[in-house]
């Protein structure tokens, strides 16, 4: 299909869809008028029943915890897939030599950068941890905090250079973190079943409203997710970063990867 024909087809389909889109838009509840019964009910009952202030966390880690479990494993699948594809050719070996662009000067790292990273790194990690554990009271949670934690490991790279980073961060540990976090989250679902409750039923003491220790099981779940996300994203950085290295050996032939 020529590009022109393709755009024509797309435009035609768009035109055909226009009246339908208009009808749907007109039929929807007016913007901002009201919210659905489901959400309203959750806003009404969750603070009382789960002692949590953050409704979004209450939904993600309690009422609709299964969705988040699926989401966590979606992330795990994506990162595992990324690792499989990136390692497919070069294997797991690591190399010291970076790819150099001919003609571009190599500027040594300044002391200011090193110092700034050494100060900011631990602080960032601390902040990440804070975001992870305060899921039930503030707009935080395992996903957001986990990403911040992973950022802290990137600061090691920025401050210490690639070799230092690879020394500090081991791929096996990241796998263990990622898998362990996901496992912890799944066990938060399964363990209540041992006590005769439903999957992921919140059987821990619920704690005090507006306190760090509120929401019972949600805190543990967030720790699991935070750990998995931090491990997973660092793994992602690591594998993408390894792409900037010079290959030790030429590409392996295709069938070897199979």
């Amino acid at each position, binding site marked *: 299909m020529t*590009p022109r024909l393709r*755009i024509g087809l797309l435009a035609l389909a768009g035109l055909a869809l226009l009246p339908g889109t208009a009808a749907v838009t007109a039929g929807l509840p007016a*913007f901002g008028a009201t919210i659905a019964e489901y*959400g309203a009910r*959750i806003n*009404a009952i969750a603070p009382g029943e789960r002692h949590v202030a953050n409704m979004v966390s209450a939904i993600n880690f309690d009422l609709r915890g299964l*969705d988040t479990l699926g989401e966590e494993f979606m*992330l795990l699948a994506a990162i595992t897939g990324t690792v499989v594809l990136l390692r497919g050719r070069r294997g797991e070996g690591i190399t010291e030599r970076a790819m150099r662009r001919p003609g571009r000067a190599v500027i040594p790292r300044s002391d200011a950068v090193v110092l700034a990273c050494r100060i900011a790194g631990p602080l960032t990690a601390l902040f990440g941890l804070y975001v992870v554990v305060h899921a039930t*009271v503030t707009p935080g949670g395992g996903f957001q905090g986990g990403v911040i934690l992973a950022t802290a490991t990137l600061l090691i790279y920025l401050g210490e250079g690639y070799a230092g980073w690879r020394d500090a961060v081991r791929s096996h540990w990241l796998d263990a973190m990622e898998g362990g976090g996901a496992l912890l989250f799944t066990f938060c679902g399964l363990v209540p079943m041992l006590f005769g409750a439903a999957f992921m039923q919140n059987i821990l003491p619920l704690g005090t409203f507006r306190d760090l220790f509120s929401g019972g099981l949600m805190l543990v779940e967030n720790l699991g997710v935070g750990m998995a996300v931090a491990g997973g994203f660092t793994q992602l950085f690591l594998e*993408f970063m390894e792409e900037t290295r010079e290959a030790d050996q030429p590409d392996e032939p295709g069938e070897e990867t199979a």
Partner: protein
Amino acid sequence: MTVLPYAVAAWLFGAGLYGIATSRNFIHLVGCLGICQSATYVLLLGLGYRWGGIAPIFYNHPPGTPAVDPVMQALVLTDIVVGATLTALLLVLTIQVHKRGGSLDPETLRPMRGTGTSVTAQGSQDRTGAGSERSAS
């Protein structure tokens, strides 16, 4: 302007589709896919909005304060994770495509057809066997 968010969502999806259909660079294509996804963010958040509602976090406001729909916010959070996973995977595929063929142009990359050659069935009596179009690396 009670329909504006919905119209924006539809427009974003259309714009993203147009971008994907005409893309000549995989990274651009990944971005366009992100635009299509933004349409779902706008739609969901728009549907869950209520004038004057607070964020559904009852920390500084007592429970019972009118708030927006927390379900939609939770759905969008999941949607964002979906977006992150898709972007990561597509970028990896893009890196590998670039490594293999040196090109980032979607129009030159066709499965089963070698690179850049337009192949239609010619009814030719090609009996030379598999992969005559491309040599194995």
